[in-house]
């Protein structure tokens, strides 16, 4: 394993310290627990909080700031945060209008956020939760922990954050988050595995000519392992699974999001986006907004994911609304 680090146990805390140092005023770290807080918190608005294992940067700490998250609670690499983190973060940023937890659907995340929500409710804080589960690679959701939360989480945090910034009530913000989750679908793939620093070796192995289709953002296996194909064939396989699932129909307007897993060059991501745009054009699906880059990663994994969100006027306006975070910023 070769990584930029000082001590393996300090990777997450030192990276967080760097985030704070690089963006003074925009974010601040909680003094006692691992949590990234909005620099000007608490605000008199619904506090939007997310979190999850580290290793997916810029998710979630990079999305704390104006028009997006009020706090992010990072766990160790690929490990859920603990309830005390969400509890303390919520107490620090809650501005009297309630708290919305945006939770990716993983067994540990769901349990830890639930415990934090129980602790806060017990103290009279108004807490709502929405679980994001947009990964169409998980087919048998009846016999599994259910669909995973992946790329759709980034879009939900942006859109829901804009609504909270505009003064939406907790009920409105929660309903909007549920709407985004119901209209977004994703799928990922990997060309190479990734290495968790504390484990020191790759989480799985792939031969030089193999790829894993339907990979999760922690290197969890997906639908199948197969021989490497052309970008066009890979994009069509993934896009078809996504389009058929919702289903997206001719005439639908979408936000097309091509996300890198951390180790894929921007050049390849745009190449994949080009193939995605052709595929959607053939289907009569209209790309009204787009996002291309590394936004929800899996350490140094090579690979990418595709996310499509069905848009309407409300979602387009909220997507376009100003945002200022380390990871996403426009309009301000």
């Amino acid at each position, binding site marked *: 394993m070769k990584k930029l680090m000082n001590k393996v146990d300090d990777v997450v805390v030192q990276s967080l310290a760097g985030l704070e140092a690089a963006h003074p005023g925009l974010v601040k770290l909680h003094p006692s627990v691992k949590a990234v807080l909005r620099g000007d918190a608490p605000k008199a608005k619904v506090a939007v909080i997310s979190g999850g*294992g580290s290793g997916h940067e810029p998710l979630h700490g990079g999305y704390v700031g104006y028009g997006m998250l009020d706090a992010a609670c990072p*766990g*160790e*690499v*690929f*490990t*859920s*945060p*603990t*309830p*005390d983190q969400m509890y303390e973060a919520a107490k620090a940023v809650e501005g009297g209008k309630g708290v919305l937890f945006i939770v990716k659907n*993983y*067994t*540990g995340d769901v*349990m*830890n956020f639930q*415990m934090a929500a129980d602790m806060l409710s017990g103290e009279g804080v108004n807490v709502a939760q929405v679980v994001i589960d947009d990964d169409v690679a*998980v087919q*048998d959701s009846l*016999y*599994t*922990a259910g669909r*995973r939360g992946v790329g759709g989480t980034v879009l939900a945090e942006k859109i829901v954050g804009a609504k909270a910034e505009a003064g939406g009530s907790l009920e409105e913000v929660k309903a909007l988050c549920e709407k985004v989750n119901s209209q977004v679908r994703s799928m990922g793939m990997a060309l190479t595995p990734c290495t*968790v620093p*504390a*484990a020191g*070796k790759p*989480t*799985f192995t792939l031969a030089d000519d193999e790829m894993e289709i339907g990979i*999760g953002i*922690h*290197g*969890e*296996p*997906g639908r199948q392992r197969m021989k490497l194909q052309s970008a066009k064939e890979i994009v069509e396989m993934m896009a078809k699974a996504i389009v058929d699932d919702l289903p997206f129909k001719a005439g639908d307007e979408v936000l097309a999001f091509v996300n890198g897993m951390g180790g894929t060059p921007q050049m390849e991501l745009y190449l994949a986006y080009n193939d995605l745009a052709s595929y959607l054009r053939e289907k009569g699906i209209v790309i009204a907004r787009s996002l291309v880059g590394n936004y929800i990663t899996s350490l140094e994994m090579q690979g990418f994911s595709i996310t499509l969100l069905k848009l309407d006027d409300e979602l387009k306006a909220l997507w376009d609304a100003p945002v200022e975070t380390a990871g996403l910023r426009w309009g301000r």
Partner: protein
Amino acid sequence: MNLDVQGMLKAIDAIGTTLEAHKDYLTDLDSAIGDADHGINMNRGFTKVREKVSQGTYGDLGAILKDVAMTLMSSVGGASGPLYGTFFMRMSMKLAGLQAADASSLAAAMEEGLKGIVALGKAQLEDKTMVDALSPAVEALKKAAGTGASLTEALEAAVLAAQAGMESTVPLVARKGRASYLGKRSVGHQDPGATSTYLILSTLLMSLKEVA
């Protein structure tokens, strides 16, 4: 011989040693069907637990296990943090005020702990989880306690049942947690959570025998 406050503190320290020694083994099991962090997380949690309980003075078993539970909940993360945290928390409620536990009081406490895990994780037998090791162990402990067995004898039966339960996870298809995404590809691998449960129980037994 019953499990008293000193015996419990010694057992918790021994469990920490065992989990540290098996850190890579548990992580390897988890990297086959999960996300390669179970050994790392359990070792981090029990390292904190050892620090915490070594600083405390305890008058009863419940107070020790409450500290164990709170520490695990705030340091392990993943699903194991809340699950083991709940297990020890529920046990601590049953053992509150007790200075020593015999076979039947330990059986009652562990049964309560198991209920907590099932309520939170919603796993059933044969879902390929820690429940596959813990549930038969609790049954064996209760049964032995019911026939008037000593604590050591009852725990011996429980550890054997936990081991059989742990080994029974190998051919199962995972239906909970991250391993469930593998479907049939999870067959042939032993569940890491069932394994850590077995390690905790077998270390408790070994530690108790050393005291005796």
